[in-house]
């Protein structure tokens, strides 16, 4: 969106603008068309010039209370009224209320002969009369180039056109002139020479058999404006132009977390789930359960009491509801309660930009908290990869600015999981879940892992993704010496592990008994050795005691003998021992 001209110094006189009332156009032009000046809308046949200018008149009359004159050079007033009735514009009623005036100017060369000098005062007078009769502020001339087919004197015509635009400016009406696109120039008759204030180019481009309407402001004198090509949509409510390219990455972010609907998946995402307002991509090969994951997320959003829009590009809503019922998810009740909206369309229904506009409109109207696109892969059939990417960038930008969580599913055509997805959006998204087939032992199982998840702790493990009657669940895969095992191989491995465990316990208990026995044997051995040692010690002790005793006794004896000898020697009166 272009910066508002209000940012200029307030003291300077600013270009006054007349709001068109056309959704989005006023945003691109920064307020509308230049007031009191003619603007040129050009484009090839069938690109919506008449409709855009007519909507300018009708919105002016209904929304801004500015009466308008529509001068039709191509269609009769009745035809015009009939043509736009499908858009809900009641021209006849507005004409009766004197809010608008449709003036049909018929030019037929076969009826007209030119001789000599003339001027277009007749047209001026008609226009002036029409403007004055209802006090018109807005005028549309559609398509004034028809004058060139009816009148042959180019010199007079060009001079008169210049006078006409000058006269319109004098009248102070905001005018739209439409012009058919010419070769190499904006309009066939070079009207852009005369209308130099604001030129808007409409285009209808066809790529891959799908047409996209585009609008571009070629110039806007005295005003800032968006310079890109903006897609626009003509539907039951008129024209909507979308300035959906946001160049700034300045949207607020939320730190709140929301559940993915699968508790085990939340566990993998740090236990809390995705960030609110983030973008999530689920990619995987066909039949891996991407839609189921998406539907569960939608279901969870509705269970929380929040709104959700589901855009399905592959299946019809009824089909999704039926299929989800088989895994125990009742989406019908959310549809009935109005929390869930499902829109199914084939991607080839219209161009990418149109899808974007369509999503934009529906989101703006329904104000959901979550949006699901399932799958984005199919959009590639409508545009090239880079176009899809740029569309998704804009979509993500828009949704993130609104704080809406968006979940895409994408079909990975190749099985090399490390590759980027085909749409190249994997770098744009905040969280990327990958669901892949794990094929082994004659069966196919689903493995899920998180490729990335910005700003949160997440599991690096591959989980087996099981779809049951009760919903989705994630099971730890068996990471054994033989590699990753899933499905029945995992079951078998688990059983054999359990068996092994029992056997091992058994073996262990036997060993315990054995050890007990050994201990007993050894213990008894220890006891007997102990006893032997004691007896040996006893013996040694006894010999010691005996020795001592003997010594003592001998000492005793010797002393006694000595004592006895002394007695005997008393008669000699003399002792030898002394």
């Amino acid at each position, binding site marked *: 969106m272009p910066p508002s001209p209000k940012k200029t110094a307030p003291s300077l006189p600013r270009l006054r603008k007349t709001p068109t009332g056309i959704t989005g156009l006023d945003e691109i032009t920064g307020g509308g068309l230049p007031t009191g000046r003619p603007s040129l809308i050009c484009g090839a046949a069938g690109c919506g010039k008449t409709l855009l200018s007519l909507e300018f008149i009708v919105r002016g009359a209904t929304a801004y209370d500015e009466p308008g004159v529509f001068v039709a050079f191509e269609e009769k007033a009745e035809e015009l009224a009939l043509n736009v009735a499908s858009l809900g514009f009641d021209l006849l009623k507005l004409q009766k209320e004197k809010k608008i005036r449709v003036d049909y*100017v018929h030019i037929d060369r076969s009826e*007209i002969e030119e*001789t000599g000098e003339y001027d277009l005062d007749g047209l001026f*007078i008609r226009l002036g009369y029409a403007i004055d009769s209802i006090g018109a502020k807005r005028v549309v001339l559609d398509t004034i180039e028809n004058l060139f087919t009816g009148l042959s004197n180019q010199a007079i015509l060009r001079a008169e056109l210049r006078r006409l635009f000058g006269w319109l400016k004098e009248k102070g009406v905001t005018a739209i002139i439409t012009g058919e696109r010419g070769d190499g120039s904006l309009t066939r008759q070079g009207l852009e020479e005369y209308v130099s204030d604001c030129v808007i180019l409409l285009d209808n481009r066809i790529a891959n058999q799908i047409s996209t309407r585009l609008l571009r402001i070629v110039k806007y004198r005295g005003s800032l404006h968006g310079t890109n090509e903006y897609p626009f949509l003509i539907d039951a409510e008129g024209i909507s132009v979308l300035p959906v390219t946001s160049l700034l990455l300045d949207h607020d972010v939320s730190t709140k977390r929301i559940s993915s609907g699968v508790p085990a998946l939340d566990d993998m995402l740090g236990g809390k789930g995705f960030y609110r307002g983030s973008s999530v991509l689920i990619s995987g090969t066909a039949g891996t359960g991407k839609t189921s994951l998406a539907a569960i997320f939608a279901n969870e959003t509705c269970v929380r009491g929040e709104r959700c829009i589901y855009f399905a590009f592959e299946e019809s809503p009824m089909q999704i509801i039926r299929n989800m019922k088989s895994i125990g998810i009742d989406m019908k009740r959310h549809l009935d309660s109005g929390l869930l909206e499902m829109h199914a369309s084939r991607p080839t229904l219209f161009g990418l930009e149109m899808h974007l506009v369509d999503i934009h409109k529906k989101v703006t109207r329904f104000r959901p908290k979550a949006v699901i696109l399932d799958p984005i892969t199919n959009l590639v059939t409508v545009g090239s990869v880079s176009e899809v990417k740029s569309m998704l960038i804009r979509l993500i930008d828009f949704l993130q600015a609104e704080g809406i969580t968006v979940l895409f599913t994408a079909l990975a055509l190749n099985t090399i999981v490390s590759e980027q997805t085909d749409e190249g959006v994997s770098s744009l998204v905040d969280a990327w879940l990958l669901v892949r087939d794990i094929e082994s032992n004659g069966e196919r199982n689903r493995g899920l892992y998180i490729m990335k998840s910005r700003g949160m702790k997440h599991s690096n493990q591959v989980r087996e993704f099981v779809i049951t009657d009760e919903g989705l669940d994630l099971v730890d895969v068996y990471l054994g010496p033989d590699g990753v095992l899933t499905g029945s191989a995992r079951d078998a491995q688990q059983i054999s592990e359990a068996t092994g465990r029992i056997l091992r316990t058994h073996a262990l208990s036997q060993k315990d008994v054995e050890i007990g026995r050994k201990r007993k044997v050894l213990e008894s051995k220890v006891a007997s050795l102990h006893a032997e040692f004691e007896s040996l010690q006893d013996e040694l002790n006894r010999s010691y005691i005996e020795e001592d005793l003997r010594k003592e006794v001998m000492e005793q004896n010797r002393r006694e003998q000595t004592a006895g000898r002394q007695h005997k020697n008393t008669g000699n009166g003399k002792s030898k021992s002394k």
Partner: protein
Amino acid sequence: MAKAKASKKEYKWELRLYVAGNTPKSVAALTNLKRYCEEHMKDQYIIEVIDLLVQPQLAEGDQILAVPTLVRKVPVPIRKIIGDLSNEEKVLVGLNIRPVKM
């Protein structure tokens, strides 16, 4: 400007000249027209002059864009000749009058 001739009589040619004010072109056109009529269809025509500045609402009916415009109402089909009518040949052919001169 007023009606040049007015009568209840049926005329072979009913002509209507639209002008915007009294411009030289309008005057020239009316003079030229009167001259041709007197010359080629005397007493068989009626000319009605409408000034769009006075009656702007009449411009829509005959789909007038340019002035001066001469509209041949009768005989049908309606023909329009725009310009100051200076080319006699073209005017006479446009009015479907066989020139008496030839």
